[in-house]
């Protein structure tokens, strides 16, 4: 048969490809054959070499996956410059192992067990289209053609179709493309979103109509639809339709992603399935942000926001996923289940798959490993003691009639949950050095706190909480005085109240609290509580430089934020930048000259890597980055105080190391999308193995991930080894 084949060179080529694609030689661990250099493995590692048609394949991923543990488990590493790899410390199980990489298509899956050494054969992509299938979503989304800068401000429905309220291209990017728009919940550019489901196409008269149906799908359809109307419905629908039309016609990304380089090859990414296919997550927590040795080797907890009433739980020691049921105090608390889909979902039809009353958003963990969750406990109307006429010190100054999320505390020792009613609303929850929780999610103009020490002592939720207005030191005398209201003409003799809400909200180490103010251009707010916060708290506001001739780089629209150990604030911008703000550089801090744009010298903007949208001139990158986290304790392994960010279109964790952004990509399953980051040190004496950084898949549509309907959210752990073969 061989001799016959040799008569035809094409047949030889076919045979060779088949051979490469289907035969993977599983060698004895001791043999060392199959690679130029032997790879040493322990009994719990899988190692080996990846070889392609031109020799060793450097910078490609080796994926080991098993479904034979209590929950699905995936560990991913990158090959070194000689194509060698080690997937370290695997739980005992049988694994599928294969190669994925840019310029390739997936290799055949090989069955393997820990202790084995493999010679894997990479499969070259037969054409550009096949290769591009694996590109990060950003490379596809960058094909989107934005309205030109000259089209702003919009001229309305009778003009260019863009709302006159959208003043600039940057505002357009913020409102409908980046995290304040579609990519705040979806990874646009992945295979599920760059195509239109056949069920929608079947009933739509054209692709624009198909997008009109698509954005009304499911229980969030009303909100998505409203946002399109707000920005200029017809124009935005046409923009998205043009994007998918061109892709359908065969257009491919104009740029090719580079394979992992340098430190990017040292990463170990571990994924575990958790929760269920109908829910989505917002955040996860692993430890006390102030002391990451708390809850060592313990469970990770996940927040299901509007989708379900349980805490998702993962025990990474036993690879077991479980649930902790939660409920509001008031059984009549509104439920997401009451909201029907605005339109049918191609995945779930008219089913209302989200059913949460508690809508848990985010967490803090205290030194006892108790989990403090922002969750709804009652109907929106506040108790009488929150309102006018109350004797509560904060209510006397700022009564509150309506609030949403309170607190739900889970104690792992007793396995009990406790609901706590607060007048104000919680979003991102963070704890200061005095065990006081801080947050600002509404009503607008309020920063709230909850003193867990008082609550532990008294269990009096009214006494343990307080809130204050945001008041700028407008007269610049260093203290809080009488103030003018937000819409009133400022008075240089008085202070000035701000009607803002903070998205990110993090105590710093000097006793101040920082938060991110969303919007255009948005900014960072610093609140100094003072001796009696309801009446002494004073604020400073630093807008992102925008239309500011004194700034080297313009940006806008912060969302996530964190503070490093030096007090420098790090935030991520819809303009496609990671940004730092160092208040110590500011010449002006308060007073009438503190206009918001008064400290461009405090800002440094780092554009995210990867391609940009067509026509884009008012941003740095097409990546969409939701949240960031400062790794103050070197939990990742890249050093202390390294800022990390969620690259939700670049499909990885972004780390600013030595002034350069490093991408720790998650190649499988495609669809990495996260809204928060946490870290933990399980064993401070175990080097890289004893610590890690955690996040969870947080797209609202896990069914858009590779795998489709039935795919669940996942917990991810990132660890950075000293080299790609460390075991």
């Amino acid at each position: 048969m061989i001799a016959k084949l040799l008569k035809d060179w094409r047949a030889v080529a076919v045979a060779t490809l088949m051979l490469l694609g289907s035969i993977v030689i599983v060698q004895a661990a001791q043999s060392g054959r199959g690679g130029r250099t032997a790879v040493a493995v322990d009994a719990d590692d899988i190692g080996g070499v990846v070889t392609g048609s031109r020799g060793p394949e450097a910078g490609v991923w080796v994926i080991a996956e098993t479904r034979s543990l209590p929950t699905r488990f995936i560990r991913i590493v990158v090959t070194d410059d000689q194509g060698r790899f080690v997937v370290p410390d695997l739980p005992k199980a049988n694994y599928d192992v294969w190669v994925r990489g840019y310029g390739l298509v997936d290799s055949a899956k090989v069955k393997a067990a820990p202790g084995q050494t493999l010679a894997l054969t990479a499969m070259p992509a037969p054409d550009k289209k096949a290769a591009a299938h694996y590109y990060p979503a950003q490379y596809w989304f960058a094909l989107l053609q934005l309205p030109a800068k000259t089209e702003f401000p919009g001229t309305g429905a009778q003009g260019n179709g863009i709302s006159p309220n959208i003043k600039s291209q940057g505002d357009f990017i913020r409102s409908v493309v980046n995290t304040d728009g579609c990519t705040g919940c979806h990874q646009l550019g992945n295979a599920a979103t760059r195509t239109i489901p056949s069920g929608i196409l079947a009933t739509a008269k054209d692709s624009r109509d198909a997008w009109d149906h698509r954005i009304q799908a499911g229980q969030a359809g009303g909100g998505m639809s409203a946002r399109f109307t707000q920005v200029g419905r017809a124009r935005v629908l046409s923009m998205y339709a043009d994007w998918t039309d061109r892709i359908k016609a065969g257009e491919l990304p104009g740029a090719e992603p580079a394979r992992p380089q340098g430190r990017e090859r040292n990463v170990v990414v571990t994924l575990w399935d958790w929760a269920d296919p109908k829910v989505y997550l917002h955040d996860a927590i692993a430890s006390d942000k102030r002391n990451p040795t708390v809850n060592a080797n313990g469970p990770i907890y996940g927040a299901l926001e509007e989708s379900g009433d349980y805490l998702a739980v993962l025990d990474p020691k036993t690879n077991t996923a479980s649930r902790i049921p939660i409920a509001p105090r008031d059984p009549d608390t509104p439920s997401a289940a009451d909201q029907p889909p605005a339109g049918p979902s191609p995945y779930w039809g008219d089913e209302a798959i989200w059913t949460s009353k508690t809508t848990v958003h985010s967490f803090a963990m205290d030194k006892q490993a108790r989990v403090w969750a922002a969750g709804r406990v009652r109907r929106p109307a506040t108790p009488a003691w929150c309102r006018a006429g109350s004797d509560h010190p904060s209510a006397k100054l700022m009564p509150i009639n309506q609030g949403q999320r309170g607190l739900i505390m889970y104690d792992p020792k007793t396995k009990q949950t406790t609901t706590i009613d607060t007048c104000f609303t919680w979003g991102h929850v963070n704890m200061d050095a005095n065990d006081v929780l801080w947050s600002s999610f509404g009503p607008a103009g309020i920063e709230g706190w909850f003193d867990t020490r008082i609550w532990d002592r008294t269990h009096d939720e009214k006494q343990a909480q307080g809130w204050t207005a945001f008041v700028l030191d407008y007269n610049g005398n260093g203290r809080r005085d009488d103030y003018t209201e937000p819409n009133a003409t400022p008075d240089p003799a008085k202070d000035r109240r701000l009607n803002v809400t903070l998205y990110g909200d993090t105590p710093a180490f000097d006793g101040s609290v920082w938060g991110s103010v969303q919007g255009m251009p948005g900014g960072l707010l610093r609140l100094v509580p003072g001796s009696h916060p309801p009446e002494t708290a004073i604020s400073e506001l630093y807008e992102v430089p925008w239309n500011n001739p004194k700034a080297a780089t313009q940006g806008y629209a912060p969302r996530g934020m964190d503070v490093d150990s030096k007090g420098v604030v790090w935030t991520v911008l819809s303009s496609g930048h990671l940004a730092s703000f160092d208040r110590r550089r500011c010449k002006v801090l308060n007073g009438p000259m503190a206009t918001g744009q008064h400290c461009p010298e405090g800002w440094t903007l780092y554009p995210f890597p990867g391609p940009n949208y067509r026509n884009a001139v008012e941003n740095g990158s097409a990546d969409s980055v939701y949240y960031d986290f400062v790794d103050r304790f070197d939990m990742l392994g890249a050093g202390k105080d390294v800022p990390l960010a969620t690259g939700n279109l670049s499909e990885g964790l972004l780390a600013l190391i030595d002034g350069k952004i490093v991408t720790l990509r998650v190649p499988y399953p495609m669809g990495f999308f996260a809204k928060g980051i946490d870290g933990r040190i399980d064993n401070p004496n175990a080097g890289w193995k004893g610590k890690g950084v955690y996040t969870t898949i947080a797209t609202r549509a896990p069914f858009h991930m590779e795998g489709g309907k039935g795919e669940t959210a996942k917990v991810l752990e990132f660890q950075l080894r000293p080299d790609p073969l460390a075991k």
Partner: protein
Amino acid sequence: MPRRGVIVGLIFLLAGASLQARPPRAVRPAAVGRFQSAVDTKNPIAATPESIAAGKQTYVRTCAPCHGTSGEGGPGNDLIPAAPDLTDAMWDHGSTDAAIFTNIKEGIGPDFNMTPFQDRLKDEEIWNVVNYLRTLARK
């Protein structure tokens, strides 16, 4: 008596929908001017059980994503700011049927977080929503 909240949609950074810190005001002068022509318009749809049922159906699909199915305000999320209570007596943008109708139809600027529904709903559907909203008023 604090500043009173809103009808359909005023959200987000607009001055403290549910923030109860300032003296009450009836209707902002700018808002009065905008829907002055509608103030004199009488609700042409009687608040019959049929109208209210139809209004509820439209409300649940169109308004509830922001204002909550009970009308008591929504929690807000990454796309939608927390939206005000429609069951209390507080109306920042006019409390007459005609004012509410206009706010739904034309939206509320300047940021239009309360989006205009004139391209999505017929006038009759909006009037039905107005009739339904009246049934939500807290007793």
